[in-house]
């Protein structure tokens, strides 16, 4: 066997000092030559551990073998069997803890850059004049309603449409994609990529009703009269605040608001677009996840002088993707680790002026297994700011549970399901994604969509409904 290059083929990207002031995508993607050379590093294991690391079980060695031979079309066919949103997954999956984390090469050297290859093959297809179509089974006459056009809902819609069902998506916002559209910024996931993948689903015959808030127009019960099954994939869209003094001052945003203004409403193009956003000089972002990184990097691109990330634990506990932490740092985001805000100092006109923070140290592990941060008394200090973005998490939107009798939720407001099937406590109603797990990841939402689609198919065929065992 030829010797494997211990280092992966790097993906070229915009230089930090340039990209920190523009909204263009950071990495450029592989050229065909780069993709082939990276694909050739794959050992083609008989029992591939990477596949087990992937929540939707993409046939990883299969598609990589095709790339290695330059058979890109074949590679894409393999990909689309399990994943209809590869251009998105290749860009936003936390590969280091999934497929790449399980890659056998990773024991001795750098694992195969599976995410980069996934992105390459999807982008390559987009440049061709035609695309790999999925085979669609003859019409079954069954109708399915999908609530929410995020990754969970889109996956369910695609899978069920392939099986010949008549699928209609209901989406509250004016654009499909969920977090992919309103949350994740252009420089990390270009909106054209999301649109392309959604359009592919529409070309398969999936119907899409935008501007449709289920629970306010029709309720789930109304939908059950028209449709044979309903899938709820409404995500975790309710922003959490810290409830500390001064948090309602002017200049303090939830990450959802900040990112929605910038991404969905294109406020970074104000005044060409009508939605404004505050272009602060000193922006503090509270949190350590992907959302916080996205907000801190958006602030830089909006022209801030200082973008300061305040996180209460240490770097090792940050839940963000490794690549995003790295990118944020390269671009000059300042990290204030082991630090927590306690209150905001507000000017007479209501604008935030300073954030008062306290230093933290790590104590005993908590329920999540991470060491619990505890404040160090007397260590308070202040940072001058004119904009703050609170990115400490989201909880599920309560609208659907509130308007759907018989749909059980947990104490945290997530919908109760049988994880093996996605069935809820209400007959004919399935759920998956962030509305079930709380804020998680794109690929887990897609995985949940896949599971639900399979059991919806079974339910439509047999009409059998087993109550959830408790």
């Amino acid at each position, binding site marked *: 066997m030829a010797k494997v290059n211990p280092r992966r083929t790097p993906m070229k990207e915009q230089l930090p000092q340039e990209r920190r002031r523009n909204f263009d995508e950071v990495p450029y993607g592989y050229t065909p030559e780069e993709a082939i050379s990276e694909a050739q590093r794959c050992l083609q294991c008989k029992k591939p551990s990477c596949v087990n690391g992937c929540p939707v079980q993409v046939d990883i060695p299969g598609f990589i073998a095709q790339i290695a031979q330059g058979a890109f079309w074949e590679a894409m066919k393999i990909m689309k069997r399990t994943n209809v949103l590869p251009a998105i997954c290749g860009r936003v999956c936390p590969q280091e803890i999934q497929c790449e984390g399980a890659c056998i090469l990773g024991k001795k050297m750098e694992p195969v850059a599976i995410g980069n290859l996934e992105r390459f093959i999807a982008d390559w297809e987009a440049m061709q004049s035609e695309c790999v179509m999925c085979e669609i089974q003859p019409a079954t006459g069954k109708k399915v309603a999908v609530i929410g056009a995020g990754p969970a809902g889109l996956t369910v819609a695609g899978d069920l449409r392939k099986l010949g069902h008549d699928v209609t998506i209901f989406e509250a*916002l004016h654009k499909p994609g969920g977090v992919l559209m309103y949350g994740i910024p252009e420089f990390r996931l270009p909106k054209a990529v999301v649109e392309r993948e959604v359009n592919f689903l529409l070309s398969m015959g999936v119907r899409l009703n935008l501007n449709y808030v289920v629970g*306010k127009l029709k309720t789930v019960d109304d939908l059950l009269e028209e449709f044979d099954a309903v899938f709820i994939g409404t995500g975790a869209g309710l922003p959490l605040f810290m409830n500390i003094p001064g948090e309602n001052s002017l*200049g303090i945003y939830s990450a959802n*608001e900040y990112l*929605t203004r910038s991404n969905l*409403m294109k406020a970074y193009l104000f005044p060409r677009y*009508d*939605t404004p956003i505050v272009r602060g000089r000193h922006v503090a972002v509270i949190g350590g996840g992907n959302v916080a990184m996205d907000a801190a990097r958006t602030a830089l691109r909006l022209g801030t002088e200082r973008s300061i990330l305040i996180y209460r634990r240490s770097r090792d506990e940050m839940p963000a993707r490794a690549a995003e932490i790295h990118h944020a740092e390269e671009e000059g985001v300042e990290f204030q680790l082991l630090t927590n805000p306690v209150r905001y100092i507000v000017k007479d006109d209501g604008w935030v002026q300073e954030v008062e923070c306290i230093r933290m140290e790590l104590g005993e592990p908590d329920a999540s297994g991470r060491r619990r941060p505890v404040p160090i008394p007397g260590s308070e200090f202040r940072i001058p700011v004119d904009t703050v973005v609170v990115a400490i998490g989201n909880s599920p939107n309560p609208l659907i549970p509130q308007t759907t009798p018989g749909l059980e939720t947990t104490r945290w407001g997530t919908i109760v399901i049988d994880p093996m099937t996605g069935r809820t406590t209400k007959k004919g109603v399935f759920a998956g994604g962030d509305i079930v797990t709380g804020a998680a990841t794109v690929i887990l939402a897609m995985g949940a969509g896949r599971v639900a689609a399979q059991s919806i198919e079974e339910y439509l065929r047999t009409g059998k409904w087993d109550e959830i065992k408790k």
Partner: protein
Amino acid sequence: MVKILNKQVLATGIKRFELDAPEIAWRAQPGQFVVLRVNEEGERIPLTVADTRPEEGVLVIVFQEVGKSTALLGTLEPGDAIMDLIGPLGKPTEIERFGTVVCVAGGVGTPEIYPVTRALRQAGNKVISIIGFRNKDLILMEEEMRRVSDELIVATDDGSNGNKGLVTDMLQQVIYRGEKIDRCFAVGPVIMMKMVSLLTKKYSIPTIVSLNPIMLDATGMCGVCRVEVGGETKFACVDGPEFDGHKVNFDLLMARLKTYVKEERQAMEIFLKSRNENCRCANRKEK
């Protein structure tokens, strides 16, 4: 795309549109609102549902041209379409037989309180309505309000309609004359709702106000609409828009409404400039 069926200018800068929106018209209840976006570059603007005619699929909105987005909306004509319309949003007004109710509105709050007033009357309440305007040329919907009220008081700040005073002065008079008021509803400028609430608090009259903070998604997803009620933070778009006026922190609401004054002014200037330039071109062609 949502078609505009009808357009009416109610007063200077205040316009009324009838929209072709059957599904929303069927579901909308008094006190609820819609969000609309004029075009691809547009903001999402919340507007109260001013009326519906469900059988005809008609939804009515009334708006004042206060910024670029509403000014742009105002340039549309019947037959034109609005890109996005979302609703009905927010919780409906709690309509019950309270006894005697007073409905107070200022300016463009009048079309907003109209469906509430009508529903309260239909529920068997004695309805006294007080509507106030800056001057008599700005008076809106007087006839409609008279039809759904047992008594209607119209006031103007400058007295040009013969009844000078603020709506709070009128409300004070109603209280003085010994009317036993069981509930008060107030819709209009924040300062007006604040003054009404301060007054009714003195007399322990339960008071409901309809708040109009900045909104974005209006489905509970962003938190820009947060208001303080009884010391707690609420999202007006989903928890409201109506709240107990005696508990609302109006000063915070007024401050937060000023977040984008600078940007709003800038957008308006650009809009007016481009409109003037267009006009000039048109003139030139004529010559």
